[in-house]
């Protein structure tokens, strides 16, 4: 056993044990490294004997080595994140990097595990809308370049969107159409995005005029289920925390015989293509591919500060003056 008594076995321990240089050990353990078969065998044996883990420190810190970036997203079935993955992939490829995407299944634990498992495979991480708390995320990402998207995390550079401003645009549009009673369907309380959007509504609408619904958990089902409660409030317009929830609302409203936008104006949030299905939804567009491009650039050109991108109301066919 080596002289080191604390921490993990390092490449230096393996090198010392065999009386060869650390760089030879590194080459022997790297699939592309050029060493004799004999050396490779000796190094592999020693590494196994000493309990050296390939995914431990030594390879993490080398930058620009893998020409790959890790992208963590909570749920690829949500088109919002699929478009981010696409944007990141295209930008990184144009800059000579592959992107390995991990879907972390809306789980903080899976996120932290994925960081640990991928850290030697990538030169850095783009972490999109993570579920982990700030402290654990920063700890997991220590020693590896990382950028956060669509969330602010103390201690990490981020790319976010001007959500308050987007909410203001949505509410201004509805007020200009003559709506006085505008409901809001809140998203999951644990989500930074949902929280920021809700804060935007609360900041823009005087407390006595607020009509707060939700929070929904399952997006489409949640919107579908909250529609009846919405009708009971007497509101003539509603902003949903995202497009999928707005689609759920529209689906239930249609089943109730409520015409959109004649009887009820509906605004979604995100501006997804899926929101243009059949009955195109007015929505606040939040940058996805563009934000991913910024995040990749930020990762590959460190030292730049955080970026806040604009949001944009897109008026389609689900909003009109109250009848």
């Amino acid at each position, binding site marked *: 056993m080596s002289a080191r008594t604390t921490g993990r076995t390092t490449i230096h321990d393996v090198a010392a044990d065999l009386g060869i240089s650390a760089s030879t050990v590194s080459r022997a353990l790297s699939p*592309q490294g050029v060493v004799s078969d004999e050396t490779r065998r000796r190094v592999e044996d020693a590494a196994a004997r000493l309990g050296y883990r390939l995914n431990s420190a030594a390879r993490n810190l080398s930058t620009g080595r893998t020409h790959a970036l890790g992208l963590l997203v909570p749920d690829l079935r949500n088109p919002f994140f699929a478009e981010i993955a696409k944007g990141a992939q295209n930008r990184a490829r144009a800059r000579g990097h592959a992107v390995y995407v991990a*879907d972390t299944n809306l789980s903080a634990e899976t996120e932290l595990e994925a960081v640990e498992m991928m850290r030697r495979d990538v030169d850095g991480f783009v972490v999109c809308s993570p579920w982990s708390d700030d402290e654990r995320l920063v700890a997991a990402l220590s020693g590896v370049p990382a950028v956060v998207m669509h969330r602010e995390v103390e201690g990490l550079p981020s790319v976010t969107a001007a959500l308050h401003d987007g909410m203001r645009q949505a509410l201004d549009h509805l007020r200009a159409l003559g709506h006085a009673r505008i409901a809001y369907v809140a998203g999951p309380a644990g989500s930074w995005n949902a929280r920021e959007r809700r804060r935007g509504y609360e900041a823009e609408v005087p407390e006595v005029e607020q009509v707060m619904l939700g929070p929904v958990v399952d997006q489409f089902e949640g919107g579908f289920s909250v529609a009846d409660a919405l009708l009971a409030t007497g509101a003539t317009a509603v902003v949903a925390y995202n497009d999928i929830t707005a689609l759920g609302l529209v689906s239930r409203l249609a089943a109730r015989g409520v015409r959109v936008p004649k009887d009820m104006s509906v605004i979604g949030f995100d501006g997804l293509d899926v929101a243009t*299905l059949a009955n195109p939804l007015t929505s606040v567009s939040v940058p996805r591919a563009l934000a991913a491009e910024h995040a990749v650039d930020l990762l590959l050109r460190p030292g730049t500060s955080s970026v806040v991108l604009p949001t944009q109301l897109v008026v389609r066919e689900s909003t009109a003056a109250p009848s």
Partner: protein
Amino acid sequence: MAVTIRDVARHAGVSPSTASRAFTLSGPVDPETHARVLAVAEELGYRRNRWASSLRGGATKKLAMIVPDLTNPFFADLVRGAQARAHELGYLVLVTDTDDDPRAESEMLASLADRVDGSLLCTPRTPDDQLGRLTSRGPTVLLHRTSDDVPYVISDVAQGVRLAVDNLVALGHRDIAYLDGPPESWSAGLRRTAIAALDLPDGVAVRTVGQVPARFEGGVAGGDLVVASGATAVLAFNDVVALGLLHRLVARGVRVPDDLSVVGYDDVPSAAMATPGLTTVAQPLVASARTGVDMLVDLVEGRPVGDAAVVLPTHLVVRSSTRAVEPLGRTA
């Protein structure tokens, strides 16, 4: 110069994919061939680090998954299913998107080869004669595509097409349009074969009205062809095409399902979110990905794969985009 699997294959007088199968046990290999390949490998000094993944038995605990387009909900569902099952088994799936470029597939696999224990491939556009190039890099399982060389999971396309058409016939439709996918798509080829093989009642016809890209825009473009065909019902190549079709039909003032019934294929999440909800053939997307992961992990961990050719059933999901044709002789 290091000995490659190609050298082993040449000396053993077999194809590289057969040599690969002999190492990975990822498909049928004649016992005599198996022994010969291993003997040649030993003789040439083709060792461990080159086919490490199959011998290490899950050393990286990571699997690669190659898909053509993550923004296509079909693949998003597959990824989700694979990721969830892999997680249960202690593996992480690294997904890469080839941006619909079959040439990028081998680059991606090469970049990932040393970082993963095996690969799940979703490759609907790679020509058959180039598939071997992708499947010879260690343990591999194909999703929604068949192969002679490696295990695969697919759904029963003939059954799916039959379920959709039988339902339309039961609703009284006689003139049914089929809006086909792109000529180069492997799954569109299967769909065409299934339609040609249908045993239709007298007086019922299924006509292909056009071939469109397997995207929303493809359905938008196909909408006018469907309307011009005069058919009372249409089966679209997939849900995404069907949703584009719905979009165009609304713009043309054609009411769904009153004027035209629309059926999709796949049952991606957005099929249920459209208004009207899309009637569709549900492919077992999540189940197929889970099964594929199970097979791949068996290969990686050196267990025999029970069934190397898994065919999963489909079922029809009836929503609001289909309705019965008014019976003849009935007046308003």
